[in-house]
């Protein structure tokens, strides 16, 4: 390690240190999470009081609101689109993987930094520029992308179809291109680092589950994001250079377009070839964090370590051969539908194994309820609740009537949204002492957890019933259909919980900022943890370990091992004579 002097710019802005880059990802992700959440608060207000004005609309550009003060229908779709894009890519991909892969991989494998610090810095800055481009699209005259976060053409290809498909969509595509470049630079780095820079004794069999999950996530990303990139490039060609990859037989606004021979369904195949692994790019890091937090705070080894790794690999493999379940209703060959139903429902097996292993880890534990632990248990709860409804959506015959309804919205917000957000929050509470050398306030953490837990289920569980009543998603309002008149109470309940849940996040933001500056000092290993990151000094140093790198002698989960008087044995402690490794 060179001991050159760090300036403000090299330390905080163009930093090469993985820990600082992780914080940059975290803060950007948190900022984007607030933006995305605010957008959802705004469109939930519209759904509870369709067409009426609201004080919240003052936050929007003025041409989004009509003369009566109500939200314009196409801008409702803009909000939904941006909310989805921000949460899926900016918060739960970059914010989650970017933060924890950067922070935990070198620390937990005993490396001084990522394989390439420079690539790692580039990865963040591509992401940062992508963020600026995406955010700037909000203030474009015709509004940001409005075709849903899945940007299906022809809607996303034709500015005549919806105003957001003009400049806003162009900016969306540029932002996503930059985003993919950033995430590939990061992902390759994560893979190389895990495979090559493990310290002495850190065999793959001794890796903490967090690192396993982050490694597999990075592999998924590297294999699937290039497909999204090419999918987007073809769309750029269709939009700007007159090609017909996705367009055919179109008459719009009385104009007969020249495009023939393209297929909008091709886009969906390419998109979901990324899109479904993407679901697990979001979920797996959260499950990795949950495994670690549950094990540490139950003071027990994670149950079935090998099965947990196997389940991660199984889920990752299956995630590449199930994309068609998003397309059962596109008119694709029913036989293909059967194949995708089969592969999709298989994912329930590794998922069930994970749930049972979490339960077995809690069983006869000595559970310490840190805020992180509360969030980790809640993530298991949402993984169960949301995972089970997947059995309905993955079954092509049942999907006929719930496809694209609020049932889907409820399902994926619980299983992917909440589980991942809970995993991310668990990670922040758990590793905050390592990141900032301070403790987050425990009591505010408790209040934050319980309000969030109640509000989140209050928002998303009722959505299943809207879906079973036949209500389609992405409707500006459901007043045009008398058959949905009875649903306004449910919509009011959802909006109430959504607004309350959004407000309660202030507690977290406050706790986060307050604790950075005024939090109580942490000890070196506040949670009594085995993994290597707690072997490093409290102060941040570039290179992680002041002296030699540690040597690893055992797996990461020797909690309450009868061979020891303490209820944990760090990975650096050699095996006792005659002790067998697990």
């Amino acid at each position, binding site marked *: 390690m060179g001991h050159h002097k760090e300036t403000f710019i090299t330390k905080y802005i163009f930093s090469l240190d993985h820990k600082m880059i992780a914080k940059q990802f975290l803060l950007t992700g948190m900022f984007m999470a607030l933006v995305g959440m605010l957008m959802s608060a705004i469109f939930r207000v519209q759904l509870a009081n369709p067409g009426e004005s609201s004080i919240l609309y003052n936050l929007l550009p003025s041409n989004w609101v009509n003369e009566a003060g109500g939200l314009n229908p196409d801008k409702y779709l803009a909000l939904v689109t941006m909310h989805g894009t921000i949460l899926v890519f900016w918060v739960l991909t970059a914010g989650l993987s970017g933060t924890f892969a950067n922070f935990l991989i070198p620390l937990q494998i005993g490396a001084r930094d990522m394989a390439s610090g420079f690539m790692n810095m580039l990865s963040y800055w591509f992401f940062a520029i992508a963020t600026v481009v995406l955010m700037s699209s909000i203030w474009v005259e015709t509004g940001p992308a409005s075709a849903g976060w899945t940007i299906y053409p*022809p809607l996303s290809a034709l500015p005549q179809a919806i105003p957001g498909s003009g400049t806003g969509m162009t900016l969306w595509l540029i932002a996503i291109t930059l985003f993919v470049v950033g995430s590939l630079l990061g992902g390759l780095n994560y893979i190389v680092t895990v495979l090559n820079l493990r310290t002495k004794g850190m065999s793959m069999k001794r890796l903490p589950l967090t690192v396993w999950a982050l490694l597999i996530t990075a592999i998924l990303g590297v294999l699937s994001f290039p497909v999204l990139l090419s999918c987007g490039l073809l769309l750029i060609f269709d939009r700007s250079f007159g090609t017909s990859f996705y367009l055919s037989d179109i008459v719009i606004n009385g104009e007969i377009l020249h495009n023939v021979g393209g297929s909008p369904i091709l886009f969906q195949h390419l998109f979901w070839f990324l899109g479904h692994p993407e679901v697990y790019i979001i979920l797996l890091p959260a499950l990795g964090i949950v495994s670690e937090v549950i094990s540490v705070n139950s003071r027990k080894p994670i149950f*079935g370590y090998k099965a947990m790794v196997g389940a991660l690999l199984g889920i990752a493999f299956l995630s590449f051969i199930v994309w068609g379940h998003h397309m059962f209703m596109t008119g694709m060959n029913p036989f293909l539908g059967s194949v995708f139903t089969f592969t999709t429902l298989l994912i329930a097996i590794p998922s069930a194994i994970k749930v049972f292993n979490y339960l077995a880890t809690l069983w006869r534990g000595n559970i310490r309820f840190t805020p992180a632990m509360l969030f980790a248990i809640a993530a298991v709860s949402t993984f169960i609740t949301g995972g089970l409804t997947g059995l309905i959506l993955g079954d092509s*015959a049942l999907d006929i009537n719930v496809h694209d309804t609020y049932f889907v919205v409820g399902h994926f917000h619980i299983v992917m949204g909440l589980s991942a957000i809970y995993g991310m929050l668990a990670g922040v509470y758990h590793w905050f002492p390592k990141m900032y050398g301070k403790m987050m306030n425990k009591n505010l953490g408790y209040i934050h957890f319980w309000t969030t837990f109640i509000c989140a289920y209050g928002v998303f569980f009722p959505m299943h019933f809207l879906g079973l009543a036949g209500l389609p998603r992405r409707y*500006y309002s459901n007043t045009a259909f008398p058959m949905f008149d009875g649903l306004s109470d449910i919509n009011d309940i959802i909006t109430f919980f959504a607004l309350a849940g959004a407000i309660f996040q202030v507690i977290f933001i406050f706790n986060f900022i307050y604790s950075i500056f005024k939090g109580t000092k942490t000890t070196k290993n506040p949670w009594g943890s085995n993994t290597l990151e707690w072997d490093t000094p409290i102060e941040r140093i570039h290179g992680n370990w002041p002296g030699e790198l540690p040597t690893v002698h055992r797996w990461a989960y020797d909690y309450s091992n009868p061979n020891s008087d303490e209820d944990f044995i760090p990975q650096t402690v050699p095996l006792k004579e005659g002790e067998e490794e697990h």
Partner: protein
Amino acid sequence: MTSILVAIVTLLVVAAMVQIVRVSELLAELKKEDVNEVTESDNKTQSILYLVIGFGFLVFVVWQMIAWNDLLLPEAASIHGAKIDALMQFTMTLILVVFFITTPMLFIFSYLYRGKKSNNAYFFAHNNKLELIWTIIPTIVLTGVIIYGLKTWNETMNMDLSSAKYIEIHSKQFGWTARYSGEDNKLGKSDFRLIDATNALGVDMTDNNSLDDKITREVHLVVDKPVLLQFRSQDIIHSAFLPHFRVQMNCVPGLITQFGFTPTKTTAQMKQEEGEDFEYILLCNKICGSAHYNMQMKFIVETQAEYDAWIAQQKTLGQKLLTQR
């Protein structure tokens, strides 16, 4: 004015939180504890909260199932729909059983095994027998679900349509139009290049099959007679969704998609069961632009005699062509 109020409220909230933190820090100092150290009493409080709020959530779930049961879609009004409903019932029962076993387990374990200084966790790293059991049982159950699901899917998709009436459902931003085939049950050709103000569906009038086609703004079906809907779109992907029949299919520009089914209940019957306001409705279920939320067409299921009387009143395209000339 409001922004000043918001600013004041925000300041007050932040001040309140600072006070909460300060007070808890002072209290901990008095008790000679680290404020952020999780104590045994924290474990007790939080585990009880998990039990109480967790079960509160389960009660909330049950309450929703009871209170909102009437809001859900009525029983399917088609032959394949009844099979889908049966599969749904089977899957839903299975899901609820698993849900009401595993979720309480999570909350109960959290409570039972809350940390105590006097306790030691049980070192239990793996158990092949247990793991085998909970791999094999889900596998067996899923095999059943998959087989049942695929059977229903195949029956739905491979219905005998030899006697089905052909009706085209044409979609565009933001409306639906239907085209009935004539007595020959053959729809005339169409081409998007022919679409203009007088020929909204782009029907090729040089094709003899077109002359007896009829264009309508609502769809009438005969009860217990199979029908094959063929979907087209002239601009964006739309999705034809008929929730009461358990029918959904995307309408894709450049492709013709289809869905065949047999309605089993007349609109009049449904009005008796569900109330006078009941109508079968075709909705758009794929985001398609500003007025996506209001793209609908009425479907009416009636007896053969009623249908015959209605269809006889509709003019064929050939007749319309004559009057135009």
